[in-house]
């Protein structure tokens, strides 16, 4: 569903944001991107949403080769990717309902259908009663939930979130992350960037660890269930990971990951 092959991104200033980045996420898989600020988490997500283009390598999202996507097809690709931002980016001059309805309006849904789906999405994030409210009257956690409703209302196959809990307290953060995990269960591919290692650990999902633009760890709880706690602890204690443990982790995890993560892409996969 999301596939990076030897992706590199070098800014005109010469700064290398990502290098040699390869990983693959299956349809309906959820993963976290961890790493300190500046590690390239945002850059990675920006490239999934075609806000940035890689300078090297190939990215395939939703069956579409992003390098080959012409400017006029970018909107169509973006409609297949739900986006949640750290500062939610709601439009403050519109009601909660209108904010959530925006992606459907853009996609050209009929009014009746918009109403039904917006209410379903708001129900899912527990804000059905606040549909007429102005976003400013909501708490930060509620605003973020509206942001999530907006991201998922169009039922995109891919959902990405950049530090969705960055402005929230730990309790709210856990709540929001659980919400993301629910979307994974309905078959959405979810990719969440976060620096909150404690939270990531508790979620028990796959974790891609970035450091200085390189993938230094691809941790899968299922593959390493036994050493789950140990790795998570080491990741936390050693954060940012020392070169020694990084090499260790990379050799162990990426190797294991490649077997499972590169099945031949079937034609139907893009529609899943």
């Amino acid at each position, binding site marked *: 569903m999301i596939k990076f092959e030897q992706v590199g991104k070098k800014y005109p200033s010469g700064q290398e944001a990502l290098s040699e980045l390869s990983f693959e996420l299956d349809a309906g898989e959820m993963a976290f991107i961890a790493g300190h600020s500046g590690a390239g988490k945002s850059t990675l997500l920006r490239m999934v949403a075609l806000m940035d283009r890689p300078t090297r390598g190939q990215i395939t999202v939703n069956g579409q080769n992003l390098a080959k996507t012409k400017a006029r097809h970018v909107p169509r690709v973006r409609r297949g990717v739900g986006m949640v931002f750290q500062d939610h980016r709601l439009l403050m001059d519109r009601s909660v309902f209108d904010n959530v309805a925006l992606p459907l309006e*853009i996609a050209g849904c*009929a009014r009746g259908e918009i109403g039904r789906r917006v209410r379903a999405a708001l129900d899912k994030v527990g804000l059905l009663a606040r549909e007429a409210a102005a976003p400013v009257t909501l708490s930060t956690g509620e605003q973020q939930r509206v942001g999530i409703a907006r991201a998922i209302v169009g039922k995109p196959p891919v959902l990405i979130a950049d530090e969705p809990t960055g402005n929230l307290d730990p309790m709210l953060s856990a709540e929001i992350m659980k919400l993301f995990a629910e979307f994974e269960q309905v078959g959405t591919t979810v990719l969440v960037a976060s620096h909150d290692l404690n939270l990531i650990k508790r979620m028990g999902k796959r974790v891609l660890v970035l450091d200085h633009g390189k993938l230094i760890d691809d941790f899968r709880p299922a593959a390493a269930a036994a050493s789950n706690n140990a790795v998570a602890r080491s990741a936390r204690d050693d954060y940012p990971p020392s070169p020694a443990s990084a090499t260790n982790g990379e050799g162990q995890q990426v190797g294991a990951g490649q077997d499972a993560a590169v099945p031949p892409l079937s034609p139907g996969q893009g529609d899943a």
Partner: protein
Amino acid sequence: MNRRVATIRVKLEKSAAPAPAPRAPAHKRRRMGAWREHHARSFRASLRRLAGRPGATALTLLVMSLALCLPFLLWLLLDNARALGGHLDDARGIGVFLKPEIDAATARSFADKLRRRTDVAVVAIKTPEEGLAEFRSQSGFADALKVLQSNPLPTVLIVTPKIAAASARATPALVDELAHDKHVDQVQYDALWRQRLDAILAFTARVAGVLAMLLGLAALLVVGNTVRNDIVGRAEEISVMQLLGADRAFVRRPFLYTGLWYGALAGLVALLLIAGVEIALAAPLDQLTSSYGGRFTIHGLSWVQAIALFGTSVMLGWLGAWIATSRQLRLGRPQ
């Protein structure tokens, strides 16, 4: 291989789009409905936005409408001047005032002599009686003329030269000859004046045209700049919409309607301004034309002209918004 799969899928999608699946028409109809709805929403929302800041909107409208009505007023003035000039059409003839002592018979023989010339097309004789009658009917001096004991007017010959006077820059040689004839008291030749008037009118028309273009450009820039400010103020909204997958047309639509509203409202204000100018000038103009015995009338903006003004305004508003949004969409990438 993945690339190939991807391209196949893209091809499939491409070929699937125009091929009508059984429920495609209904789907298409739904999309059309949504599209129309977005138009209607943009139409209303942009008007609400303009109404939301009445001060700024009024200023923009005033600047735009002034820029629009000035060339139209100038053009109107010109049109009237041209209509006035039309009364001088017969000025091409040479007025030959014979000496007072020439009697009717001599005048006729002199006219016959002139008619035989190759460079003369027509010679008309106006006897003193005819001249007095005409003067009485046209000048409004009928009462004053009653006081006169005798007719002071001489016989006048109206000689139309054969050469195309319009093309003749110089005074025809005929005029010179006539002036020196022993029967002739005075020669009046108006064609030169007529040419000069034509040149002045043509020049003013060109000035009006150039002015109209410059002021039209100003109106375009006023709208463009206003919409650009609007876009800058709504950069976040545009960014979010683009990230949610809105295409250029979707993002552009509300701004185009804003431009359309500016154009339409400015057109109406310009028409009101012109009407105001007409009303303000009506009374003194009436006096002026009545002093000429009502031989010509001043006309205002016709319906066709009013519609043309309105249409131009709407088009300029739309175009200004289009230019501003295109520029902004080309420069700005969603952040």
